[in-house]
């Protein structure tokens, strides 16, 4: 029971308090690049959540049973990025074969995920925080949900903004960044919600 509570708390804290985009600054590129429409933003979020959960599991196993067991810490970055790149490739092939509809929705985003720093950041945070296998997977899933939440909210705001009268110089990237700043301020309200 104690452990179950811990896992729930970890999930909430990953989604809201330490939101990957708005608090940890991980995954800003897709956050700015793929947040013009709610629908595409949601697909991107879904694809990222999927890869993040798998990455969390795979990198935990590699770190524990290969890198730590053989004392090869200097290969951490190289091996993590290879794992992520192959995982993305694998997921792409798998979805293409099994669900053409899903592939149509997510396909173009998948290659972009390899260079999403949220994924590598996640892989690096796990050994740093010393999570167990279960906690790592929950952490990965929570990070994905938090990512999706932020990017979908952002897309919603930007869709509304299309009809807004934004001064010329601020149109595009600048106003998006300022909105992100205001969202980050709102998310600051979550800090202290629970303490880990």
């Amino acid at each position: 029971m104690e452990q179950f509570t811990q896992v729930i708390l970890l999930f909430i804290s990953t989604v809201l308090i330490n939101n990957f985009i708005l608090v940890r600054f991980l995954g800003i590129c897709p956050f700015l690049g793929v947040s013009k429409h709610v629908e595409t933003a949601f697909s991107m979020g879904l694809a990222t959540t999927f890869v993040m959960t798998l990455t969390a599991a795979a990198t935990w196993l590699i770190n524990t049973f290969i890198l730590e067991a053989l004392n090869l810490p200097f290969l951490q970055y190289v091996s993590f990025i290879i794992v992520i790149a192959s995982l993305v490739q694998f997921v792409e092939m798998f979805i293409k074969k099994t669900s053409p509809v899903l592939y149509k929705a997510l396909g173009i985003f998948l290659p972009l995920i390899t260079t999403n720093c949220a994924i590598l950041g996640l892989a690096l945070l796990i050994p740093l925080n010393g999570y167990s296998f279960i906690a790592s997977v929950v952490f990965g899933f929570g990070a994905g949900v938090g990512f999706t939440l932020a990017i979908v909210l952002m897309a919603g705001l930007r869709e509304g903004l299309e009809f807004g009268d934004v001064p010329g110089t601020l149109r595009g990237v600048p106003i998006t960044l300022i909105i992100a700043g205001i969202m980050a301020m709102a998310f600051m309200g979550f800090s202290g919600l629970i303490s880990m």
Partner: protein
Amino acid sequence: MEKESIGRLVLTLTIIGIISALTLAFVYQWTTPYIKEHQAVAQEKAVFNVLPGAEKFEEVTKNGHTFYEGYNNAGSRVGVAYIATGGGFQGQIELMIGVNLNEEKIYGISILTHSETPGLGARITEDAYKSNFVNKPFGDYTVVKREAAEQTEVEAISGATISSEKVTTIIENAVSTIQSAYGGGM
């Protein structure tokens, strides 16, 4: 685009991988002694920081915890330091605490790592807050939002009461860990 054989693709990646691994193994060999040294120096500084009068220290393990016993020139034990961790407002806080077991009071604390809000909770690293614990007798402390009037009171950082309370809790726990390892009021 010309056809490329799978063999050539695999070979290229393997060669790059091997060169990369060899280079990094060399870099690791070269830098590790320096990194270890920095860590040792940082630890030493932290221990001496919270154990005034200590000239050298020894690492001892009791009840599964690591303690640093500080000795003065005459070889008698001046106090014990301990690294305690606990949850803060934003993330984990790791601090070193030094205590005087004979007089049952705290020498001082130093914050090793934290991720509190810069400008607010992060002020737990400032002397104004840390001095709260200097020469404090063991016991339960109350965090107050004014100047501390009594021995057991800790003055909170304005705007960061939760961080102040969390650190206080970590210290209370650390003191009881040390006391139980060293047999109470010995």
